[in-house]
């Protein structure tokens, strides 16, 4: 028994000291980088210490009881069974402690909910499983996908520092400007969280939630989707890059320029190989999640593209599926998310890869066809 007790004691000590080995930031909330996040952090620390004190008193008293009143030969336990004054006292005491916590919490709450217009308004849309950012004033819009590759996730390649917290295109915001986020979703509920801003808002399909931030230092801030949104919920990071207002202007202009360049590419003459190659890349970032690397999908929910009758024989229908999505299924529209070139390329890819050998109605799809589809719709 003694030995067992010693081992237990050692174990407890080890555990209790674990946090000491880790850095403070690994065991506590981040104070964040703006006024609101710091305020919430302070509130957190206040209630935390109140709780620690209450907890310590309760547990300490308990240890005292265990030691002082263990059964001894011939002792006579007291027989009292209530003490109304004492009971009233602690009931009132609890109420007072709670009031002390509730008052600062109320003020912080009101500030967090302040809903004034921002200098910059960004519409954030959650999709399975990526975020879309639209700058309402600047008409810039793009998607932000996880960029950690599969080899790292499958433990084949070494994991990078920002494993699972890196994206192909981060949200860019200027410092010292009031940014207002309009958050919604396209399919299921997601939740947009950046701990450093203390912003966590659910993205509800069909409704818009608002949140705001104002960052005073440049930097890269990382967060994640925090509402279970399907199988790749864990692979839906948020990355925000705060830059100086000047750099922000530059970035916006670059974005606009790139959009014009894209449009010109639809005019170019494409070879099958070129399309196939681009398509493979597009497929890897956008489609593998559901249709899998080998094109087999995960039936019955995610159909196989390899050998699919539709893919092989119905080019028009496939274009339509990619442009419109499939109502009520996870298959969404890629019309906004991918350029004409990308869409043409990925269709070409699916018609050629995994032993698919589409020849009906011309083997490849060229960007022009996608553009035509778009124009016809208008």
């Amino acid at each position, binding site marked *: 028994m003694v030995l067992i007790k010693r081992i237990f004691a050692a174990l407890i000590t080890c*555990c209790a000291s674990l946090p000491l080995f880790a850095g403070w930031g690994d065991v506590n909330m981040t104070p964040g980088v703006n006024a609101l996040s710091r305020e919430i952090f302070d509130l957190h620390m206040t209630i935390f210490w109140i709780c620690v004190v209450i907890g310590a008193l309760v547990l300490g008293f308990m240890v005292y009881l265990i030691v002082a009143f263990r059964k001894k030969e011939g002792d006579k336990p007291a027989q009292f069974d209530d003490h109304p004054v004492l009971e009233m006292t602690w009931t009132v005491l609890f109420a007072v402690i709670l009031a002390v916590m509730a008052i600062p*919490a109320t003020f912080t709450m009101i500030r967090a909910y302040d809903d004034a217009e921002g200098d910059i308004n960004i519409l954030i849309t959650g999709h399975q499983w990526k975020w879309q950012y639209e700058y309402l004033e600047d008409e810039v819009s793009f998607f932000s996908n996880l960029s950690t590759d599969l080899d790292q996730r499958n433990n084949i390649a070494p994991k990078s520092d920002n494993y699972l917290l890196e994206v192909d295109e981060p949200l860019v915001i200027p410092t010292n400007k009031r940014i207002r986020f309009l958050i919604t979703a396209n399919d299921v509920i997601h939740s947009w969280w950046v701990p450093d801003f203390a912003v966590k808002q659910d993205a509800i399909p069909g*409704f818009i*939630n608002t949140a705001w931030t104002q960052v005073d230092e440049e930097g890269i801030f990382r967060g994640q989707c925090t509402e279970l949104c399907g199988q790749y919920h864990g692979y839906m990071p948020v990355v925000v890059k705060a830059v100086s207002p000047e750099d922000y202007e530059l970035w916006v202009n670059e974005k606009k320029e790139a959009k014009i360049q894209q449009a010109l590419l639809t005019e170019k003459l494409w070879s099958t190989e070129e399309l196939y190659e681009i398509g493979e890349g597009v497929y890897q970032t956008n489609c593998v999640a559901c249709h899998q690397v080998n094109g087999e999908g995960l039936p019955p929910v995610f159909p196989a593209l390899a050998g699919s009758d539709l893919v092989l024989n119905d080019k028009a229908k496939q274009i339509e599926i990619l442009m419109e999505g499939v109502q009520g299924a996870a298959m969404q529209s890629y019309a906004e998310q991918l350029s004409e070139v990308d869409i043409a390329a990925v269709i070409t890819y699916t018609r050629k890869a995994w032993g698919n050998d589409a020849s009906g109605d011309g083997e490849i799809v060229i960007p022009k066809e996608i553009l035509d589809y778009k124009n016809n719709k208008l």
Partner: protein
Amino acid sequence: MSAVIDSHSDDHHHGPAKGITRWLYTTNHKDIGTLYLWFSFLMLFLGGAMAMVIRAELFEPGSQIVSPEFYNQMLTNHGLIMVFGAVMPAFVGLANWIIPMQIGAPDMALPRMNNLSFWILPVAFGILISTFFMEGGGPNFGWTFYAPLSTTYAPPTVTFFIFAVHIMGASSIMGSINIITTILNMRAPGMTFMKMPLFTWTWLITAYLLIAVMPVLAGAVTMMLMDIHFGTSFFNAAGGGDPVLFQHIFWFFGHPEVYIMILPAFGIVSHIIETFSRKPIFGYTSMVYAIASIAILSFIVWAHHMFTVGMPIAGELFFMYTTMLIAIPTGVKVFNWLSTMFKGSISFETPMLFSIAFVALFTIGGLSGLMLAIAPADFQYHDTYFVVAHFHYVLVPGAIFGIIAGVYYWLPKWTGNMYDEVLGKTHFWMSFISVNITFFPMHFVGLAGMPRRIPDYALQFADFNMVISIGAFIFGLTQLLFLFIILKSIFAGKQATSEVWEGAKGLEWTVASPAPYHTFETPPEVK
């Protein structure tokens, strides 16, 4: 005794029937209690095995043993099975065994329905588990099954999930009607409400909560069914509905549900602390009022699970305040337990050890709950491992420890044999330590920003997750010891006296150990 009864049922005054039909056809509250308890134990192991899969996957960053899709199925079914399969049936089992004996009744009020409410549980869980083998796999949308992930985007097996939930609800409602009726109608003469044992009191209020909220859950899943298959738009903004509506309905059920999972444990622990402190329970009256206030408050706090869905600010504040209020009655209970021990003569048999750990660790879980109740702070806590830490503290060293304590306390009464005290203590210390290794570090990773419900995580959370997983494996293996101890006391062990524990109070300790198949056919007189 009237002649009618004798002629009608020949097995009435003898022991139970032989063979499997004893269990299939039984109307005896003790048999049914036993069935419930074994069923719940099985489910604890099944849900626990799923937790082990979760912990193995999270042992290290990177994909380990299961796909993300299967991880979600594990997570969902772990939650569902633990809540509806392990904790609730365990409490109903204890209620079946103990309440009639505590109030001096010959049996439950409606014995045939009692049998029915048990036997539809295996049906419900059988169907739930069989979805794993159907096309599309089992439910994968979390135990809270938020729409539209559980409607438009759910696998086709969600239909079976919905019906399984209906059946679980029917079982709980029938079980609760039975318990309420038993308590209200079948107390021995002289047992007034304010003389009722606390376990009976907690169950009376729990049963009331159950009857009030299980139908609401049934309503919620019915709406899901309609949305999925019949074109309605409850949870779809395109038709004028709202996905958040689902959450309101779910949590209107869900929050009272978490008190359903803790109130009976409060009752058990009150008895045990009283017995082993050799002192009457402190503040019986305030205990009863505290339970009632917790139950009433539990109906108006539900949206504290939804602080981030974007409710109007008045809602946020209202639900924050009401939630915080619950700390008052709960604190009253904690302080009453401590005062019961004060100036007592305390001995530390296994049930008492588990009860003391219950009070200590439940307080930790309650305090983290209070932190979660602070709405603006919850913006940072919500859906992180801090929440997971909170609810495992109130559920595992809370509800589960309460159940384990109750099992040790009443086991000699059931089997007639004492359990092995050395093994019992070992079980306690192993559980106590490993439960903390498992769930305490979750606070840290949660605060540091690790979201819940993810199969893979960023590198800075790696160390703690490994510790957590190791703790979880130890805790899981320790429970095999529990099984062994129970089996051992069924088949061997020191003969228990009727009183079992020195100075234990209550009618259940006046009958022989093991308790005869039929007790109190003539009601005892309570003074």
